[in-house]
Each structure stands twice: as C-alpha cells, then as structure tokens.
C-alpha cells in the first residue's frame, strides 16, 4: 500500500475517533443541539468550533509554509467557487430536515457501522438511494466537494 493510502487511512481514523469521542454519533445529542427551544445541549457547538478552527488554522499555516503545496504533488484545496445559488440552499434545507428527523448526518451514520447499529443499516442504504436520485433525477452531484 502506498504512503498516500496509509495516510488517508490514518486521516479517516482520526476523523472517526473524533466523531465518536465528540458525541456526534449519538442521535440524541445531535437532536439536543438542534432543540433550541427545549433543553438545549450546546456540546455540538464545541465540536464544530474545534473542528473548524483546527482545519482553518491548519490549512492557513500549511499554505503559509508551502505556498499551497500538499503531499504527493497535490495542491491544497482552496475555498470552493460554488455559486451560492438556489440549488445549494434548497439541497441544504432538505439535508437539514433529514438531519433533524433522525439525528444522523453522513459521517456519524457511517461511524456507527462500527457498532453495527440497526438504525444505520436502514439509514445508509437510503442515503445512497437519495444520492443516486439526486444524480440521475436532477443531474446534481457537484464535484467541488469530492
């Protein structure tokens, strides 16, 4: 296995450990965060804050040191130039409805495969069908977010 693949495996392990440690894999905690008018649980704001700050500062420092070169002759990704159009807003609103219904976004759903939860064996195939519907029904499978 190439060094690049081993690094991607390691990156996924950091990500997955972080997801589970942070409580994002617990649908009850996610719903507690979205339940502003109820018994609000602010913990996911710490998760988001820690993740955004680490990624943002890390990318900034990396770019500053290397002029934008990644490993293995790649260029570091830049901010997407996606138009903030109706499709972006409607798609994100639809995603949020699904997120609020069951408390799963894609990463935590996949992380929960590690615990063989019945819920994610229902959720993940449905998510795949939804993605294929977006692609074949609406031609929507944007490439900026690879």
């Amino acid at each position, binding site marked *: 296995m190439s060094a690049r693949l081993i690094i991607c495996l390691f990156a996924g392990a950091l990500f997955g450990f972080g997801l589970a440690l942070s409580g994002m894999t617990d649908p*009850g905690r996610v719903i507690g965060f979205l339940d502003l008018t109820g018994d609000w649980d602010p913990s996911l704001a710490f998760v988001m804050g820690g993740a955004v700050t680490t990624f943002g500062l890390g990318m900034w420092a990396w770019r500053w040191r290397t002029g934008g070169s990644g490993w*293995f002759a790649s260029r570091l990704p830049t901010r997407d130039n996606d138009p903030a159009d109706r499709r972006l807003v409607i798609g994100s609103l639809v995603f949020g409805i699904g997120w609020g219904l069951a408390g799963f976004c894609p990463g935590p759903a996949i992380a929960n495969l590690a615990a063989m939860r019945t819920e994610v064996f229902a959720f993940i195939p449905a998510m795949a069908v939804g993605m294929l519907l977006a692609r074949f029904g609406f031609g929507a499978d944007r490439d900026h977010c690879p």
Partner: protein
Amino acid sequence: MLTSNYTFAHALVGGILIGLGSLVAAGASGKIPGISGMFSRLLRPRAGDTAWRALFFVGLIGGAAAAFALVTPAANFRPVASLPLTVLAGLLVGFGTRLGGGCTSGYGVCGLGLGSKSALLATAAFMFSGIVTVFLIRHFGTGMP
C-alpha cells in the same frame, strides 16, 4: 477504559480530531474531504480515484470502533426515530447533500474553515431546517410513524 461522563472536553477534543483528520486528508488528496461527497464518489467508482476514499472510510469506521471501545461516553447511543422515519431521513440526507453540494463536514467544517461564503450559506440553511424540524416534531410530533 476512560470511564468519565461526557463533558464539553470530549466535544472539543473530538472536534479537534475531526479537524485534524480533515486536514490530513486534504493534504494527501488535494481535495476538500467532505463525507457526503466522498461517499457518493464511492457509488461511482473510477479507476485510480477510489482507493483513498475507501481507505478513509475504513479508517473512519476503525477509529470510531476504537473510541466506542476505549471511551465510555463515546458509546452513548440514543436513537430518536422509528426505522421508517430513519429511512425517510436517509433519503432526504442523501438527496439534499448532493443537491446542495456538501454536508456537515464538507460545508460545516472544511468550507467554514476556509472562509467560504457558500459554505456559510449552506451551513445556515441546514442548521435552520434541522432546528425547525426538531421544533415541529417536539410540538406537533405525536402520532408520527
């Protein structure tokens, strides 16, 4: 075994690890490592552009397994929806993330970290509809499937 109760420190350290994992994946791939995008690309595999995503997910599941085993509060799991509703949620999440172009990681972590205005708009949109959905279920949700 780390048997302490869940605290904001778990949330913060977990978030930092999510950011680090994203950073390492971005540096190795040259791409924004959004989960919904990487997952959908695995549904459309292309030679030479699949193994790194597949291994990222192998690592993700392995990392989660380690946290579930080693950190007691990480194993908390409180499902909130019936299985039919969970299937509906999965359809909406899959469709919406591909129509919109990203999810909590691609927009909410990477996009915001890079200062993208599109990502800010997308994040505001899915937070808003998530909050409204939970509000409606809380107040009018009796009798839902």
